């Protein structure tokens, strides 16, 4: 690859030695386990179309939150993670064992590039966002310092698009190229479970051809109805046969949702409500029924036909399978005739 940063990457190697000699901080951890994987040459086509090449398969990886979760699920442990919020609360990371991984950032826009350099990474992994034309954490508006992360090592990622499955598959391909044993029964089990979950989901929707669903997010002031066009996981559900309704009048300046005032909360009458998973708790439906007099004007809400929808860019087969299984149960228990 034409590499304008080669100079920098070499200097980063120098930084790593420097760190060891001068202060001894950072790179004390054992050298990356250079098992059979660490051969080469290596190449990967990133989400923006660039083909990234290296002489040796990268083994010291710094990854963004959900992307790190994806790599970990294939048995590849990054040396560093940067996230947009504390890793304890990040929905993609909160259940993972992160011991031995250096946390380089827990706030959007702020990445500790010095600490990152001390890890001597040879690959950075972050989703590619086609609309922003940037990798996760390096978008416009972040600290100028943070952007220098990209100077430490080549950066690759899977493009965010119209399907969450693309993300899982993309990171499977990346992990494979990095030497992950994706056929290892333990690792492959997740994918199997996911495939079974999809089959079950399709069967459930096929059994209820008239079932309609809507992605919703009620708040104290308004009700938000999700526009599937901008929610890859809802597009996946549609592909698999669930009729996720398209709001008639998405907000003009922000078409991700149609916002309804509480007076008009009953505008859509789906049979099943998919509740934004970022805010979902089992008790919320009853709570909203109590505090918002019109929430139960939605018949599905009144009947308790409510389930969580993962509106936060799942990256792994395992997580997606778990969510799909819950959804399938909800679909199986739903009544096609509650709404209209």
């Amino acid at each position, binding site marked *: 690859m034409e590499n304008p940063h080669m100079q920098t990457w070499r200097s980063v190697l120098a930084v790593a030695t420097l760190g060891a000699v001068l202060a001894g901080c950072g790179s004390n951890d054992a050298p990356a386990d250079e098992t059979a994987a660490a051969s080469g040459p290596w190449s990967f086509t990133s989400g923006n179309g660039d083909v990234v090449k290296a002489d040796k398969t990268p083994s010291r990886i710094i990854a963004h939150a959900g992307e790190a979760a994806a790599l970990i699920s294939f048995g590849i442990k990054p040396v560093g993670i940067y996230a947009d*919020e504390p890793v304890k609360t990040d929905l993609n990371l909160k259940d993972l064992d992160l011991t031995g991984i250096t946390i380089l950032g827990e706030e959007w826009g702020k990445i500790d590039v010095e600490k990152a350099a001390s890890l001597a990474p040879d690959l950075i992994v972050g989703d590619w966002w086609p609309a922003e034309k940037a990798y996760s954490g390096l978008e416009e508006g972040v600290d100028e310092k943070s952007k220098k992360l990209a100077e430490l090592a080549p950066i690759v990622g899977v493009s965010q698009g119209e399907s969450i499955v693309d993300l899982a598959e993309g990171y499977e391909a990346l992990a494979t190229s990095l030497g992950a044993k994706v056929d290892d029964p333990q690792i492959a089990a997740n994918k199997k479970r996911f495939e079974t979950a999809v089959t079950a989901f399709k069967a459930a929707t096929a059994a209820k051809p008239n079932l309609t669903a809507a992605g919703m997010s009620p708040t*104290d002031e308004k009700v938000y109805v999700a526009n599937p066009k901008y929610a890859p996981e809802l597009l996946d559900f549609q592909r698999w046969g669930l009729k996720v309704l398209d709001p008639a009048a998405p907000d003009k300046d922000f078409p991700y949702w149609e916002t309804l005032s*509480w007076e008009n909360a009953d505008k859509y009458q789906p049979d099943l409500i998919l509740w934004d998973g970022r805010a979902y708790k089992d008790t919320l439906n009853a709570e909203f029924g109590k505090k918002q007099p019109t929430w139960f004007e939605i018949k599905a809400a009144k009947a308790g036909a409510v389930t969580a929808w993962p509106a936060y860019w799942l990256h792994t087969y395992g997580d997606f399978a778990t969510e799909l299984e819950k959804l399938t149960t909800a679909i199986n228990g739903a009544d096609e005739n509650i709404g209209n």
Partner: protein
Amino acid sequence: MRTSATNRASGLVLLVALLAVVAFLSVTQGSRSIDLTDVLRALGNLGDDGTITSTVTLELRVPRTLVGILAGAALGVAGAILQGVTRNPLADAGIMGINSGAAACVVFAITVLGIQGVSYYVWFAFGGAIIATFLVYTIASMGREGATPVKLALAGAAVTAGLTSVTSAIVMTNIDALNELRFWQVGSLAGRYTPILVGVAPFILLGLVASLGLGRVLNGLALGEDTARGLGQRVGLTRAAAFGVVAILAGAATAACGPIVFIGLVVPHLARFICGPDYRWILPYSMLLAPIVLLLADVLGRIAGAPGELQVGVVLAVLCAPVFVGIVRYARLVEA
């Protein structure tokens, strides 16, 4: 021209009538179009018969209108008192750090205690507002001169600056809190129903009644502290009492609706324009004018934003911005 007491009193009666009309508008108009007959039937039955029209009318619009009336009155009166006591025509609750105090406490509730929902924010916002007012007043009272207008304004600005940077530092690491905060801090009447109404009504009513006794004192203070002292007023004491009333009124209103700025600033000037500089009249006029303006803005927002709604804070910002510039330009800022 002399405006006689009778004229002013009949003006008040007129305003009461106007408020009734606007309140009726607020109950009949909304983002959902409901036939007038249905609204009247729901009002007549005075019980929710289970239809959506009656639910929207009785459980959404009526409490919301009442919250609007109370919060509006509270903000208008609080603004009038503040302008009188600080002799600063640009004073309102926001300048006293009340909004930033309330916001900081709400963010604390969201991030540290994990609480979400407007009905829970009420008490945190109330507490935060009271603490911030107390802080600002204490800081400004330090030193020999006591709480002079400039010191009050600066103490307010400084407390606001400090609290705001803490608040924004917290929400930057918690995107859900940022999302909650940015909607809360615009100020809105949407989603404010009976529980909130019942919660804040006693405080606001108490504050409003207490405020009516302040008219004469404020008239004295308006002549300057020395004159007021000469008239036998205990300036420090009255000032503290006035701030107590402001903290309760603005705190409760902010707790109910989030920080609604501008109305407390603009309405007292409107009142002064109509009834002259006598605070015994400015206070009741502000008490009636402010809810009229607030409800009108809210109705406008409900109609203009259908099927969603515009927050009342946004509508007020658009309406009040030119008025604000006018006030700044022509207001008599006391030259000390």
